[in-house]
């Protein structure tokens, strides 16, 4: 038998495929079979799957942005916690000069966070249109 005639069949199931399979089950099988509060929660659960998928895609970009901000606005001796926690605590202590560069960081950060958590939120469209040209 020549190599050309061999057929391969996909056997690995990616995270993305699992996501699709679980969401499909929730929306197509579970949701119609449920009622009241359980049906509502099934819809919510499907939305949460969306957050997981988008965080997988955009999380690294967000982490890199926060790390760069920590490097720019925090002292070299880092406090414990994630970069965004360190920035928050420095803000609370009024240790950061919140000039336009810092505000630009916050805007970029929140566009990414909104894209992960709730891309359909109406203000996100407004913010994107307003801030797109600034970056």
């Amino acid at each position: 038998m020549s190599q050309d005639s061999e057929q391969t069949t996909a056997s690995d199931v990616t995270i993305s495929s699992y996501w699709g399979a679980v969401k499909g089950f929730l929306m197509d099988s579970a949701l119609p079979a449920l009622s009241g509060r359980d049906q509502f929660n099934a819809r919510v659960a499907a939305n949460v799957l969306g957050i997981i998928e988008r965080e997988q895609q955009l999380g690294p970009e967000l982490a890199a942005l926060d790390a760069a901000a920590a490097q720019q606005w925090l002292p070299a001796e880092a406090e414990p916690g994630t970069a965004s926690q360190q920035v928050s605590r420095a803000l609370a202590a009024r240790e950061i000069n919140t000039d336009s560069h810092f505000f630009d960081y916050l805007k970029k950060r929140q566009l990414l966070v909104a894209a992960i958590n709730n891309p359909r939120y109406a203000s996100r469209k407004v913010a994107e249109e307003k801030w797109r040209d600034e970056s």
Partner: protein
Amino acid sequence: MSPEQLTGLLNTALSERLAGKIPGEEVIQLERLSGGANNETWRLTWGITPLILRRRPFSADSIDQLEGNILGLSLVDEAAVIQLATSTSVPVPDIHAVFDATHPIGEAFLMGFIPGESIPQKWLVDDTYEVARSRLAFQCGEALGRIHRIDCSQLPANIGPTSLDKRFAAAQKRLHAFGDISPAMQFGLNWLIDHAPAEAPCVLLHGDFRTGNLLVDEQGLAGVLDWELTHQGPAEEDLGYLCANVWRFGHLHKPVGGFGEYDELIAGYASTAGWTPELSTIRYWEIFAALSWGLVCQTMGALWHSGNGDVERAAVARRRSEAELDILLLIEEWESE
């Protein structure tokens, strides 16, 4: 608690509490309504009378020790405030029975059913409510003006006045307690502290007067619901809260709740309150409302982590990003004016 268990407990309790008031022998058609990540809302019929049960499935005091009225009043106090509001011409439901946390039903109250539409996605767009929408901002102003004139000395003792400084300190405490995970919310709190208006006299605030907590019929405002966040504070707080982006349900071009204009709201308010609030102060409280929404979302996440609540509460935690985005948009707008 299952619907069957709740039905059994209600049958016993209501036979006594509703005797001589509302004819009936047993609960029929008990159904949990979907809205509400904090309290449960159930619709039921007693005899032929439709009623609404508000029930808290946990003790708020036991899981939220932080200051700031995020989880709201006890339902016993909420019922007392609603009863107080019946003395005004603000449309509120009648309270028929109140149960404290020691009752087998749990902390709850039973109220009358007011006909009307509560779901914003319906009444904000449906042609049936076109006239209602055109009147609603003025009517909301009128209602808030009336609520703010309620005599605070009649309130339950724990609904006292709170200074802005205390509110800021409570918000800061929450941000720290929740792990300082939001630079945008911390930035917003700093800005609110730096731009705080002069202290104003405290009035009774509804505290959650917004699209989603209003009942609307074809004539306009039919009912004001969900009084659990009632507190005392400056009048403009309620007005700004109603205008917060998050409560416009996508209709951002209509600043008052997604249905009206600022001048309509202010005119309605002036007609019953007897004075005219400043738009700039209302706008300040819009930013405060955005921060408050972010704190509510964080609280929901904390509650879920502590084993209280279902997937909805976990999901609401991430809606914090709505507040974060609005804080930045509103501050940018303020600073550019």
